[in-house]
């Protein structure tokens, strides 16, 4: 997909990061990587709690509340 809008948004975002110094970028990299791993772990926890065998999981409770 080629979108002028998406490309313009990407260029704008790149221009914003250009205002950071190289040191600030590396610190942002570290922060970003920490958050990404946290998010991945949260997702894994959620998938584990969604196990149908585990009826007490928050996802199971939520699904039950829908019916």
């Amino acid at each position, binding site marked *: 997909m080629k979108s002028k809008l998406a490309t313009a948004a*990407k*260029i704008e*975002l*790149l*221009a914003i*990061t*250009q205002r*950071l110094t*190289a*040191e600030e*970028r*590396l*610190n*942002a*990299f*570290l922060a*970003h*990587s*920490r*958050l*990404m*791993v*946290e998010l991945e*772990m949260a997702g894994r926890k959620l998938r584990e709690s969604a196990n149908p065998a585990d009826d007490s999981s928050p996802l199971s409770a939520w699904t039950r509340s829908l019916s």
Partner: protein
Amino acid sequence: MRTRGPGESALLLLDVVGLITAQGIEYAVVGAMAASVHGAVRASVDADAVLSLAISRLRALERDFVTAGFHTESRRGDPDDPIAAMLVVKDEHSNRVDLIVGLRGLEVEAFSRAIHVPFQGVTLRVVGREDFVAMKLFAGGPQDIVDATSVVRLVGNELDLELLRRLAQRYGRTTVKALEILIAEIVVK
């Protein structure tokens, strides 16, 4: 060690750099950390660096890492692999640093062109932007192309195109072609 949990491969790299510089080994940070310095900031679960080191010295280096308390894994590339060997350094939090040895096409001058970037109290040597773009185009994966494109978008007009073209040639015809497409698309002449 500086790492306290997962997602801190950049901090593990600082420990790794401490050990390799103490031995006088030249290195340059590449991969996502270099992409963050030269182009768009993005996350990664690992950190990468290329080493200026003879393959024959890799085993001794690995022993030094093990002695210093790191977990390591060394891998050899096939004869047709553009990477001759890789030493993976890990910690107990699954952080990892990939140390690349013998990257085909890499100019030895890439180490002297590396730029100095302060990070967490250490001055890191990060591969220069022309070397970075050429290496990424050579790697050729989807993320590599995105990384190279980001740099050219950001600083296309400031790039040393003569150097970049020469570096691309070292990596082969496919890299030269990819570079010319990128330049034609993005760099304002």
